[in-house]
């Protein structure tokens, strides 16, 4: 025991010495007080103090840190703004934390070529703000867009409320630069519309810091739509609202956003902001269509007709930008409002085929009742991406554990419905066990082989995103003892 502690201290001082030897000097955080803010990301249920933290100023410094860590076989975890909610940026006490926030330059913004070259620490919203004078915007808009960083967005393949029409992060990138575990600069993609060889950019996007440290990103900018129309519809049941979603898409309309909220969320929003949401509604559907004026008008009229024919008791069309903001307030502020119900909640991120929405929601409510926990639903209905929020009381013994178990059951139900355990939040450390439900051992092994191609020594964010095969075996053993089927033969492809 004493020897192990001594060994760890030795590793720390060797690492510190190696980092201090780098010229020009690095910004190193080594004191306990300074390291405290980096103990966790937004997956606050877990925390860990990093061995050391470094705030690199440029790509060269990232390279120096990775090389020093490789020499000493010390893990490297990179972190952007720390808004991730699956624990992907939680540090290791035997590893260096690379905090990318100082690399926050918009290197170039080319309105003619409709692209921006940015460092990883640039905030998501900042890109759209910088592009707005040229009539352009960056489409992915995760709910944390005010603070989350582009580097983190790329690492997590972040989504948002406009994915159905505009895609995820992976669809909105042209190129990136990353430092791999050898300390080599890897350039993926290009400023042309494709690049030779394998699509390394596809692998790096969403790799949760496992394949490289992203040092520069070229994002694609799109013209701001000429017109946007927002509608809010109230439904007497979640089921009818979910069916209306299918009707809209079946009619050949691809809305920019199609969001749903259930009664728990509606009531919380009403209590918080008195928005005058339709009283007595069991579900609200928020639909947004955009394009040139004629197109948006025509689509809004069609959507309204479909909503009314699908049993909506009330449909509101925002008359102007101010009213549009008001309608969105319930959706965008939902999580803030939910925090007033109980301070602690846990948001799930499963995706299912859209037609399964009514059934999965019924299953969510049934499971919540079984566990005796309150669940609220506010989510991207158009994408089939559900975000049940499970409320628990952290001060009540066993409540968090029950909440996590309920979350796991919901995700398994998503996989059984032909969906996935994470639509946009990432696996991190949160969903490692569920990875074993979604993937077979040979597929998990293939993921490890992909990682080894970028990081043979396994020093980049080890233990995140992909579970070890051993963990999967242990986990399925546990599930058998619990009486559940470990790997039901579900259509997973």
């Amino acid at each position: 025991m004493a020897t192990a502690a001594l060994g760890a201290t030795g590793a720390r001082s060797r690492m510190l010495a190696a980092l201090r030897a780098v010229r020009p000097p690095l910004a190193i955080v080594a004191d306990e007080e300074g390291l405290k803010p980096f103990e966790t990301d937004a997956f606050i249920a877990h925390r860990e103090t990093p061995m050391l933290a470094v705030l690199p100023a440029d790509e060269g410094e990232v390279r120096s840190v990775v090389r020093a860590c490789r020499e000493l076989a010390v893990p490297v975890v990179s972190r952007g703004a720390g808004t991730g909610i699956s624990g992907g940026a939680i540090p290791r006490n035997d590893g260096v934390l690379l905090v990318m926030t100082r690399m926050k330059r918009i290197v170039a913004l080319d309105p003619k070529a409709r692209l921006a070259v940015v460092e990883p620490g640039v905030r998501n919203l900042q890109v759209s703000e910088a592009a707005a004078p040229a009539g352009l915007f960056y489409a992915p808009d995760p709910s944390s867009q005010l603070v989350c960083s582009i580097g983190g967005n790329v690492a997590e393949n972040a989504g948002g409320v406009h994915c159905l029409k505009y895609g995820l992060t992976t669809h909105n990138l042209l190129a990136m630069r990353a430092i791999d575990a050898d300390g080599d600069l890897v350039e993926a993609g290009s400023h042309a519309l494709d690049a030779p060889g394998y699509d390394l950019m596809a692998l790096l996007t969403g790799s949760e810091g496992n394949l490289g440290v992203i040092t520069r990103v070229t994002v694609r900018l799109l013209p701001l739509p000429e017109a946007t129309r927002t509608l809010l519809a109230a439904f007497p049941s979640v089921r009818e609202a979910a069916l209306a979603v299918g009707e809209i898409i079946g009619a050949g309309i691809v809305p920019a956003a199609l969001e749903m909220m259930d009664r728990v969320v509606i009531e919380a929003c009403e209590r918080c902001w008195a928005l005058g949401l339709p009283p007595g509604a069991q579900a609200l559907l928020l639909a947004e269509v955009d394009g040139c004026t004629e197109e948006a008008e025509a689509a809004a009229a069609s959507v309204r007709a479909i909503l009314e024919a699908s049993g909506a008791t009330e449909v509101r069309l925002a008359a102007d930008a101010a009213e549009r903001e008001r309608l969105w307030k319930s959706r965008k502020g939902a999580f803030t409002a939910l925090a007033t119900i109980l301070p602690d909640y846990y948001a799930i991120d499963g995706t299912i085929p859209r037609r399964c929405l009514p059934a999965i929601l019924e299953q969510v409510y049934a499971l919540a009742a079984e566990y005796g926990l309150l669940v609220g639903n506010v989510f991207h209905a158009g994408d089939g991406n559900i975000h049940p929020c499970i409320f628990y009381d952290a001060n009540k013994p066993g409540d968090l554990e029950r909440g996590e178990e309920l979350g796991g059951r919901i995700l398994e139900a998503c996989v059984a419905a032909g969906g996935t355990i994470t639509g946009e939040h990432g696996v991190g450390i949160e969903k490692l066990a569920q990875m074993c439900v979604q993937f077979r051992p040979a597929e998990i092994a293939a993921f490890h082989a992909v990682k080894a191609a970028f990081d043979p020594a396994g020093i980049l964010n080890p233990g995140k995103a992909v579970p070890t095969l051993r963990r999967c075996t242990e986990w399925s053993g546990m599930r058998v003892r619990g009486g559940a089927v470990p790997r039901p033969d579900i259509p997973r492809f």
Partner: protein
Amino acid sequence: MADDFIAGLCELVRGHAERGAALNIRGGGTKDFYGAGQRDGTVLEMGAYAGIVAYEPRELVLTVRAGTPLAEVEHALAAERQMLPFEPPHFAEGAARATIGGAVACGLSGPRRPYAGALRDFVLGTRIVNGKGEDLSFGGRVIKNVAGYDVSRLMAGALGTLGIVTEVSFKVLPRPAAEATLVFEMDQAEAIARANAWAGQPLPLSATAWQDGVLRVRLSGAPAAVDSACAKLGGAQDAASDYWRELREQRLAFFAGDGPLWRVSLPQTTEPVLAHSRQLVEWGGGVRWIHGAANALEVRSTAERAGGHATLFRGGDKSVGVFHPLQPAVMKIHRRLKAAFDPAGILNPGRMYDF
């Protein structure tokens, strides 16, 4: 039957891996010309593994077996007023029929690509058999999915060198209700500038192409949107509705004759390059086709200086390398990925680079 086919395929691959014998994967054979030369080996015909596995128009998701003819897929989508937004080329001649597996392996997209996205953007999931004879599934049948590395997208354009694609799920989109093509007379430099300026405005662009002093612009969307864009842009309406199909299939007069065909992929706003050559400009300036004798070194270095890359698409002397050379760090990862998916190096060896 489907399970038997996959089981048989896995066994075949394992046998070849043990012997180190190459497998040349083939769908309809319409793109045999594409890529570096094939080495001697067993030809693996995938045409028999065909059929649409699942297609639910309201999900905007289609799952299909690799050997399914592309035409059959497009027909099924058209019946529901939907489409593959990336407009993949068939390059079918005579009785040969392009397959969906071949389209994914080549990763090629057509005229709509700059405005709707590439083939890789619409891949949601793939089922593959890797070089160890393992049947693996990645991604899925849902629009949003970030579980595990994005291996399914990696298969797009990998030319079968990492795995035999057996099934693919795509995101599909509604077919636009209206379409119109406008024609403008102008030189190449102006055409590139115009196409990029328009792409920065909220216009329903769906294709652009310039050749011989004429810029063609396709608009797609709601009828009112197309009408208003036509009024805004001016120009003459082109009645020849099959221009874009003929362009996609390389059946325009520009592509006729032997001579090497280079595909030079550049940042869209790049000024005209290699002015002395015969060119057709697509993708808003993003692709410059060069047909006829050209100096490979000059083409490659020009592309590279502009931040792009050049592919010897058809004909010519393949010894100069069909695909643009990779940087050492990128090549290092390519070799390791190849070794990870296909340790015996038996899947389409040499079709892309020297591995």
